[in-house]
């Protein structure tokens, strides 16, 4: 359950790491839900290649929001996602409040459960991170979208140079139903000549390398807000997911792990179920309380 909506299990495929759910529908069906790649008002070509670099314990990407735009998403992609048995969450991005509002208004289809506002993409210079770094902007944007949609509203926060507990409160105050914590961290990868390796010059770090920091953020945000927190960052297996739930997350998102094997999120669902059964259906609230006392 997330803000009154039932999910079949607590594992969601994170934005940008499961396409639009078309490639592996059979896996998408079994998860709690999937978040689409970010959709913008106009089509975007994205950044030049290369868009990915492997680093110790993670990857740095600079895809740059390549997507067909909201119109084509509605006409070409949404119809193919009909009858999906799991929850469909659409990740939306833009550089101005107005763009987010326009997109939100266009996404009324019943098959969509939630909108996830991407205020945290490090790969778009004009908006993205700047929006998510400023609590005032988070507030304005969230309340503007809130007024125009009845869907579940999730705000995806950044932890780049900003305290996500502060922006999470801003989102909560303006009507967000949940927050996703965290998006990728800023990253720079240099080649042997000291030049940027990625086509977008800088990118976003994800994978196991960010897990301890992501856990830290989830713990912190969960203590600061009453709305549910969706934990994300470096979850590679059931144990990782379990730790996020212990840290205060209601649900989790899995990103990088999907790139390694497409059914990895489904494997995490099963591993998590086994762990929870072994721990005799733990009450995560209790675990959290016990830890906070220490």
């Amino acid at each position, binding site marked *: 359950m997330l803000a009154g909506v039932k999910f079949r299990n607590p594992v969601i495929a994170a934005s*940008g*790491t*499961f*396409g639009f759910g078309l*490639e*592996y529908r*059979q*896996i998408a069906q079994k998860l709690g839900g999937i978040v689409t*790649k970010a959709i913008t008002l106009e*089509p975007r*070509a*994205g950044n030049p*290649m*290369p*868009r*990915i*670099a*492997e680093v*110790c*314990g*993670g*990857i740095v*990407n600079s*895809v740059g929001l*390549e997507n067909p735009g909201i119109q084509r998403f509605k006409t070409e992609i949404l119809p193919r996602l009909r009858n999906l048995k799991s929850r469909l969450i659409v990740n939306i991005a833009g550089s101005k409040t107005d763009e987010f509002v326009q997109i939100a208004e266009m996404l009324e289809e019943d098959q969509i459960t939630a909108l996830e506002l991407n205020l945290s993409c490090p790969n778009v210079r004009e908006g993205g991170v700047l929006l998510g770094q400023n609590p005032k902007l988070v507030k304005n944007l969230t309340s503007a979208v809130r007024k125009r949609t009845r869907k579940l509203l999730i705000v995806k926060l950044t932890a780049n140079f900003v305290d996500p507990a502060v922006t999470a409160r801003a989102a909560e105050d303006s009507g967000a139903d949940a927050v996703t914590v965290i998006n990728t961290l800023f990253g720079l990868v240099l080649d042997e000549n000291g030049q940027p390796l990625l086509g977008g010059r800088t990118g976003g770090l994800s*994978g*196991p390398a960010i897990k301890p920091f992501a856990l830290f953020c989830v713990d912190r945000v969960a203590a600061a807000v009453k709305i549910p927190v969706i934990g994300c960052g470096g979850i590679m297996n059931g144990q990782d997911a379990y730790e996020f739930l212990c840290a205060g997350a209601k649900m989790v998102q899995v990103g*990088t792990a*999907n*790139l*390694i*094997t*497409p*059914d990895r999120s489904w494997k995490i669902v099963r591993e998590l179920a086994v762990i929870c059964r072994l721990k005799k259906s733990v009450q995560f609230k209790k675990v959290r309380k016990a830890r906070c006392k220490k």
Partner: protein
Amino acid sequence: MNPATSISASIIRKTKLTSEIFSLWVKPENTESNPAPGQFYGIKPPDNADLLLRRPISVADTKNDRLRFIIRVTGKGTAALSRLPAGTKIDILGPLGRPAPLVYNKNVLLCGGGVGIAPLFYLARILAPSNRITTIIGVRRAEDLILVNDFRTLGARVLISTEDGKKGIKGILTDLVPRILDKMAEPVIYACGPREMLKKIDEIAGNLPVWGFLEERMGCGTGICYCCGIRKKTGGYLRICREGPVVNLKEVDL
């Protein structure tokens, strides 16, 4: 459709082909994999935090249910794979990508630069019974040559270019292409190698279609991360791992 689950495969035989290139015959467990020429597998380097992603490697040949990969050591992942002894189990995902189109009763020209010749061998084996095949292999040094006799065994005509001039003609592969094309009626061209080589061959070929085997750094290899684009002439990108890796070079901006 791309598989969602990876499979375990044991290394049956490992051979060193040159100082940098090795060959792996692997046997996938409990599955039938029927890759087509041009398709590739994502091979997971042995467990190591530094090596998170799979390495895309083309199918160089098959026999019954076994797969052959021919790999050049270029960095950490391929080096780690090169150290695995026969008997080791590796985790592979595939077959991935769109296969090369097959032709019948044609004059086929295969152009392989360096280790790029590897995927063309599997293609040649499938095409050989029903086509006339000419292969050009281009390498820097004569000792980098691989698969020459294997192509000859298939009945293909083989031409060689080496930059050191110790085998075949002295020069680069594309020096040979115009001469060969002049003498071929309605050729069908397949090419695999560095981007500059593909570009040059496409120019030389003029209006003839060239099926290029493309490479790019990949995240997933399965079409879900959009990390592996190549610019389309009509605008936007196509995903090399999904709409490729074999594409008509006339349709993309190299």
